[in-house]
């Protein structure tokens, strides 16, 4: 099978080479040394569809968000909310009425005009009964949507929601056209600076610059963009070194980063992400229903060793489901620090003086089995036997763990920013229920005051750090590798994305 693929790949490459060669010959006389305006950007995971409003995987947004699709508001590279298709907004004093003034002259790639009726359609589609939106709860607070005129959109809320505006900036909340929405999964049509051209499944998605882009202040540096999907780290490195791919904003193998340093053509950029690696436990299953057992397991783990062994030392230890980039972060890694002796004592107190045996279901992404192997050795020190069961991600993992909650422990990186509220969701795969925590999350949503919110986020973090519904391990950094002449890619990742608006080549 591999050989067939590589032969086919080789033929495609050969054909591409031929086309490129003849195109090059044609152009040679005209443009001699113009700045490059095309980009090939590599990703490890291929999205299953291209409509971020119908399913949750972050890879969808990493191709389409801000490139093809735009939202009422956007999130910028510092994680701030900025106006986009809504040029301004007002929030009533009681926080229940949001009035958006929309941009004029915005057209979808298929020619449809964007106005308040379209915006209402898009939001109704996302929150409606038929919606499969991965973040449907975002819109739960919205009661009614009114369109007094073409340029005005009014959202009336059932109750205050401090996060709504931020959520409207997410990939899941982008604006889709009334005529094109149904086909966005395969042929996405948005209002963004790039238009969709083609999707070769298993290989690439191609985009071109949108000449009719409404925001004339944006000067695009690219006219052609190709997203390539390459899962294997070795192949990623080879593609970067040969110049087949210009950038891997999220390179797959931290241990290979050192090797790029000698290459003067490439730069390595270590940035922040929201990727929290946590080992979730089934909080209703024995023995994990006992808080002391979870705390003991947490104390059995030396986070710095896990980071060093699993991710070559790239990463920051966390003590709760919150990253140092999130507002109101407090370092809680000291709540249950590494202490195998104490862990053993606590296990004995919980009624497991001789430890116990359980299974961890690990997805195949390299961080998962590697972290699991180290944890296995650490648990063995306190007499706990952990069996590692590889579980294919996403299909089988989603079925067994996420939906079926048929598991003891699992390990996965949570990519969404500020998603501490998942521990208040019911149902959610941790099966964790703590009314005190749910109460704090409710309060956060009802508060508009950011200082108060941050205080409450602090409380939420402390509850999790003490309850240990999941073993909080570390935040993965964004390991970017790209051509040294390429500028404008985001260094950090306040939200999973590959925003290409400012990307350009320098001579």
């Amino acid at each position, binding site marked *: 099978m591999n050989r067939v693929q590589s032969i086919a790949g080789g033929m495609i490459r050969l054909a591409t080479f031929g086309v490129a060669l003849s195109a090059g010959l044609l152009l040679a006389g005209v443009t001699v040394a113009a700045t490059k305006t095309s980009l090939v950007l590599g990703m490890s995971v291929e999205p299953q569809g291209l409509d971020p409003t119908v399913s949750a995987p972050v890879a969808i947004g990493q191709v389409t968000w801000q490139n093809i699709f735009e939202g009422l508001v956007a999130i910028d590279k510092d994680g701030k909310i900025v106006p986009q298709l809504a040029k301004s907004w007002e929030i009533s004093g009681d926080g229940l009425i949001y009035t958006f003034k929309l941009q004029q002259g915005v057209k979808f790639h298929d020619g449809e005009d964007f106005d308040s009726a379209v915006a209402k359609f898009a939001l109704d589609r996302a929150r409606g009964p038929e919606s499969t939106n991965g973040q449907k709860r975002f819109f739960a607070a919205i009661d009614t949507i009114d369109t007094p005129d073409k340029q005005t959109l009014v959202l009336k809320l059932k109750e205050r929601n401090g996060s709504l505006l931020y959520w409207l900036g997410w990939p899941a909340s982008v604006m889709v056209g009334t005529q094109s929405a149904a086909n966005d999964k395969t042929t996405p049509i948005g209002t963004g600076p790039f238009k969709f051209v083609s999707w070769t499944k298993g290989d690439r998605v191609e985009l071109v610059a949108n000449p009719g882009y409404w925001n004339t202040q944006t000067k695009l540096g690219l006219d052609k963009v190709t997203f390539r999907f390459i899962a294997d780290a070795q192949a990623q490195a080879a593609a970067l070194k040969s110049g087949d791919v210009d950038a891997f904003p999220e390179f797959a193998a931290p*241990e*290979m980063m050192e*090797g790029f340093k000698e290459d003067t053509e490439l730069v390595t950029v270590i940035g922040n992400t929201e990727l929290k690696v946590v080992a979730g436990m089934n909080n209703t299953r024995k023995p994990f229903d006992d808080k002391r057992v979870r705390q003991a397991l947490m104390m059995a783990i030396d986070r710095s*060793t896990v980071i060093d062994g699993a991710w070559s030392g790239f990463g920051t230890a966390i003590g709760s489901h919150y990253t140092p980039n999130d507002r109101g972060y407090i370092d809680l890694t000291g709540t249950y620090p590494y202490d195998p002796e104490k862990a053993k004592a606590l296990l004995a107190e919980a009624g497991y003086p001789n430890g116990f045996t359980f299974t961890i279901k690990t997805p195949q992404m390299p961080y998962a089995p590697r972290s699991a192997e180290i944890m296995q050795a650490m648990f063995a020190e306190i007499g706990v036997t952990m*069996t590692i069961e590889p579980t294919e991600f996403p299909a089988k993992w989603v079925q067994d763990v996420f939906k079926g909650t048929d598991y003891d422990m699992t390990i996965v990186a949570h990519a969404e920013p500020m998603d501490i509220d998942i521990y208040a969701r019911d149902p959610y795969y941790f099966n964790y229920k703590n009314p005190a925590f749910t109460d704090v999350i409710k309060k956060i949503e009802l508060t508009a005051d950011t200082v108060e919110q941050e205080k409450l986020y602090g409380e939420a973090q402390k509850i999790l750090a003490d309850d240990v519904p999941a073993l909080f391990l570390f935040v993965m950094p964004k390991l970017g590798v790209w051509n040294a002449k390429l500028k404008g890619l985001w260094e950090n990742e306040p939200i999973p994305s590959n925003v290409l608006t400012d990307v350009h080549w320098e001579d």
Partner: protein
Amino acid sequence: MSAVTVTVEKPAARRTSLFLRRPNLVIGGAIIAILVIIAFVSLFWTPMPPGKMQIIHKLKPPLAQGLLGTDHFGRDVLSMLMAGAWNSLSIATVAVAFGASLGTLLGVTAAARRGVFEAVAMRANDVIFAFPPILSAMMLGALLGTGRFTAIIAIAVFMVPVFSRVTVSAASQVWARDYVLAARAAGKGGVLITIEHILPNIANQIIVQVTIQLGLAILTEAGLSFLGLGMAPPAPTWGRMLADAQTYLGTAPWLAILPGLAIALTVFGFNMLGDGLRDLLDPREKGRT
């Protein structure tokens, strides 16, 4: 009158050393003997406990830490290779034993019964043979979960047609011999004839086949572990060591070279031994060397 294929040594005058006469046999045998010894030793002693992680000592080259260096978790590579030898050899041996017994049983039965039974059995074998062992291992893994048992079954299943084919053709030839006809004429049943005449006469060919298939089984086991379908961690296997080493090729090449060498050497050993045994035992090859 049954010992037609007994090997007869040449006269003493031609007695040169076994090594010169049968270099394959000696080299292959020596490699396998050493491996078997290492595998058994690993059950009682390895330089370090094979799963012991010392992350502060990770990725040390050979001789800097331990004889063969350490891996990305700071585990001693030599200890892992030794324990891996046991895992590889034990899985391969059990799988081939299963496959050979079942395949031989099927083969001799088909040769004895002929007719519809043979046709059905042989076509069923063809069907099994058409599935690559990796594919059947993946299906079995989905059904039973991955692990030692799955690996053994997956390899054994694909050994069955190999052995039944070899057996059926060899046994059919024996069935046509005069002394078998005589036995039948004397009223002996198929089971008795198979035990008394067929099996002793085809044993050599089966032994040769077992040796060659062991090499193939080692390779398949390594392939399965490489894909994560073999034994679960922390049990060290050569295949998984190779898989883990992939991304360290640039920085720590010994992590890939050493288990790769171990696999290659073992397969080479079994093939040499198989060749040597064939020269020694298989009557059809007589006179060729």
